Structure formats: C-alpha cells, structure tokens
C-alpha cells in the first residue's frame, strides 16, 4: 500500500449562496486545482459526493458535469452517496484508489445546494436517508432521530439540557471568526434552551442550519504530492464503515457503531489512539450528536461528553479542541459537501493558518456521519512537519 497526501484544497463559503451544485462544484474544484501545481492532465479520476441535488434541484450526473466543466475530461468521474457522509466517502474512495496504486492523482469534492428549497421540502429530501419502508412512514425526521438519541442519553447518563446546549454555544462562538461559516454570531445557553422546540428535547439552536457549499481536495501519492506543493498534508488513516439504518435497529441508541468502527479502523491504520489527536472536526449536525460523537471517537468515557463540553475542555483553548471551525452548527451543513469541508478545515489547522488556530496541532481528525448512524467516515491527517 502506498501512502497518500493532500496536495491542494479549495472551498466556497458555506451559507445562503443562491448557487446550484454545478457552480459550487466548479468553484470548489477550480480553487483546489489552483492551490497547488497540479496540471489538468495529471488528474486520473474525480469523486464527487452529493446527496439531494436530484430531489431539490433536478440535477443528476453531477460528477461528469463538474469534471467536464473544470477541464478534467477523459477520466472516470463518479458520484458517491451516503446521505450526509457523501463526500467523506468521496474522499475515502479517492484515497483508496491512490493507496492501492490504481491512480496517482485524484480530485475529491463534495457539493450541495439547499437554501433555495423550503424547510418542508429539504426536511423531506433529507428524510430520504431514513428507511422509508419502516421508520420513514412514522414521520420521524432527522431532528427526531437525534431527539430520540438525546432522550435516551439524558435518561441513562443524567446529562442536563444546559450541558447539551453548551455545544451550540461553543460552536457558534467559534464560527464568529470563520469567514466560511453561515452563522457569525454567538448564542447563550439561555438562547438555546428557550428557542423554539423542534424535536423534543431538541430545540432550534440545537440544530445545524442548511447551507449551500462546495469543498474539494487534490490527493496524490506521497512522492508525487511533494512535487505539487510545499506543504502536503499526510493521510495517516482512513476508516469507512456501516452502522444501523434506523433507530429501532440499535441495542444502545447512545452509541453509533458506524463511528466507533470507522474510528477504530482509522486509528489502527494511523498507529495512533484518540489521545494523540490535537484537533477535531466532527459531525455536529445537532448538539446532541457532538456529545455522542466525542464519546464514540474515544475522546471521553461514555456519559462524560456532555460534562466535558460544559467544562470548556473542547474549546479552542481546551485540552482537545472540537469543531474550532464552528462545526455544522455554525458553518452550516451543505450535506454532500460537509465531509470534505471538515477535511479542508483540518488541513488549514495542520498548516498553521486557521482563523481559530489550535497551537501546535500536528494530528487532526475529521468525522463524517450519514443517515441514522448508517454510515461513517473517519480521516486522520498529519501536518507537513511530520514528513
């Protein structure tokens, strides 16, 4: 197996952009291509993650559309879909194709356009990731799935609503200084626990906002990557696994097995443990999700995640900064773009030029999750100083 590095990165801001997936994909990929010394004919393949463009925009065949539009012709261009983990999977497939020697240079991108649709329309589109034959029929939404998870978590571990709200407070604070974030204003614990109810016990400010956005990376075999950039980011480990496809399929709804198994795979490949990670971007689609994720990724004991965030241990200046970008809660969640958006933020941290820079960050982790914990990717990245 060959080692793989990220040579180039590009992104749009996340937010209300009044742009479709074609424009967002073209901009993200073009920026990634221009960020390094890659030539178009160096690129062997493109993988593109997208979830709801067919449902919301009526646009499919996006991977070849974007590839053709950015001058990448005559190569395979493949869409990957795994709900909100769609571009985590695109990254993973691109990485695997280089690691196994099939390709040398591959572009991975994720795109989504959501804000031109109404809330009911995109709630239905996102709900298509539930098992329509069983759980979907009940009317359970994704906020509803995490409402169930939080209801059980609070019952089992005695976490308080105020502790859980601390996730939103932290991530909204981090988003203030991130120009790529949709929300640039702070909220208080009181704002969160008094905001409109969405899916009990979750309220509006526990929920990430929809967004439009695109993000892309240029991956290359180590050795080639050094010819394309002075600061290649090493892919130290990558895990991609499947979990449970509905709430009733869990024996323990407070642990999403897709995350624990993807993390085990990525840590094992990287030869590290959770204690070695310096900075994390994880899938905080809801405040409750960040708490569960932080435990499932091995950073805190089961039941300790809510207390940890309330105590400030995951703040930018805490012992383990989580979502210094503002996460999905502040950046927004352009579902198919989120996974590579997280990787973009970690690359910026490891190059030492992030707006919320974590001092001395050498190892970063990105965690992307799709469906009812149905699929997860975990990526462990190492900074250029480790080469």
């Amino acid at each position: 197996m060959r080692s793989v590095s990220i040579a180039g990165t590009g992104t749009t801001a996340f937010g209300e952009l009044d742009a479709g997936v074609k424009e967002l994909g073209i901009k993200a990929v073009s920026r990634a291509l221009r960020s390094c010394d890659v030539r178009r004919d160096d690129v062997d393949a493109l993988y593109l993650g997208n979830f709801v463009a067919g449902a919301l925009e009526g646009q499919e065949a996006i991977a070849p559309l974007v590839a053709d539009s950015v001058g990448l012709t005559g190569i395979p261009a493949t869409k990957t879909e795994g709900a909100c983990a769609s571009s985590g999977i695109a990254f993973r497939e691109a990485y695997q194709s280089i690691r196994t020697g099939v390709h040398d240079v591959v572009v991975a991108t994720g795109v989504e356009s959501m804000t031109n649709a109404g809330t009911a329309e995109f709630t239905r589109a996102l709900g298509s990731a539930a098992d329509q034959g069983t759980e979907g029929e009940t009317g359970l939404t994704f906020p509803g799935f995490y409402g169930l998870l939080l209801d059980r978590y609070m019952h089992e571990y005695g976490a308080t609503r105020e502790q859980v709200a601390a996730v939103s407070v932290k991530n909204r604070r981090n988003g203030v200084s991130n120009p790529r974030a949709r929300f640039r204003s702070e909220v208080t614990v009181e704002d969160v626990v008094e905001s409109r109810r969405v899916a009990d016990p979750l309220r509006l400010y526990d929920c990430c906002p929809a967004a439009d956005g695109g993000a892309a990376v240029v991956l290359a075999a180590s050795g080639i990557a050094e010819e394309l950039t002075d600061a290649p980011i090493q892919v130290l480990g990558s895990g991609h696994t499947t979990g449970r496809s509905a709430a009733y399929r869990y024996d323990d709804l407070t642990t999403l097995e897709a995350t624990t198994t993807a993390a085990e795979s990525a840590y094992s490949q990287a030869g590290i443990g959770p204690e070695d990670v310096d900075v994390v971007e994880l899938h905080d689609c809801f405040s409750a999700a960040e708490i569960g994720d932080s435990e499932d990724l091995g950073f805190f004991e089961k039941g300790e995640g809510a207390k940890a965030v309330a105590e400030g241990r995951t703040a930018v200046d805490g012992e383990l900064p989580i979502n210094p970008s503002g996460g999905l809660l502040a950046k927004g969640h352009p579902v198919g773009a989120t996974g590579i958006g997280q990787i973009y933020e970690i690359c910026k941290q490891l190059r030492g030029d992030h707006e919320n820079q974590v001092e001395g960050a050498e190892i970063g982790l990105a965690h992307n999750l799709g469906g009812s914990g149905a699929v997860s990717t975990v990526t462990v990245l190492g900074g250029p100083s480790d080469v």
Partner: protein
Amino acid sequence: MSETDEAAFPASRCVECSALYGHSVYACRECSSESIEPSPIDGVGTVYARTTVRVPGADHQGAEPFEVAVVDVGDEETVRVTARITGNPKLEPGDPVVFLERREGTFYFEAV
C-alpha cells in the same frame, strides 16, 4: 397472549431459524431465508426513547406535533420497533404503552 384487551402485535418469524422481527423483513437477517411467517406476540410495550416531532417533512405537514417512540414490545420475547404514540402523552423511557393498530405501515401505540 395476555388476558388484557390490547391487540396482539403483528410480529413475524423466520420459519427456518425462528428469528423474531417487529418491522417486516424481506429475508432473515440471521440466516438469509426468505421464508418469513406472521407470528403475533403480546402487544404490551415499554418506551425505550421518545420524541415529539414539531417540524415535520412535507409528507406529514399538518399532523404536528406528534409523538414518535422506540418501543420494546412483547412479553416473553420482545422486539424493538419505531412507532407513533397516539395523543400527546408525556412519556419517559421505561413507561408502559400498548399496541393499538398498524395503519399505512406505521405501528400505533397508546399510553397505559
């Protein structure tokens, strides 16, 4: 079945390996057999987790707010299902519920 008047819950069972299912399956998850037959079980249940959906998707507009719960249903053998709870009772994990009916693919329970 119990002597109470709740409806039997329409579980199904693998003819070959006896695995029991709440939501219907097209093939057995344990042995891959496609021979699945009805196997009603007791309709008493216990709430595992619940939520109130207040912002529904387009297909459920107008029904909000409604209760969705993960319920462990059955007596000697239980299965876990995702179901609607009728009315808007203040339920917590561990509370008892009983099965009412299956309508348009959805299981409905009510608070005891």
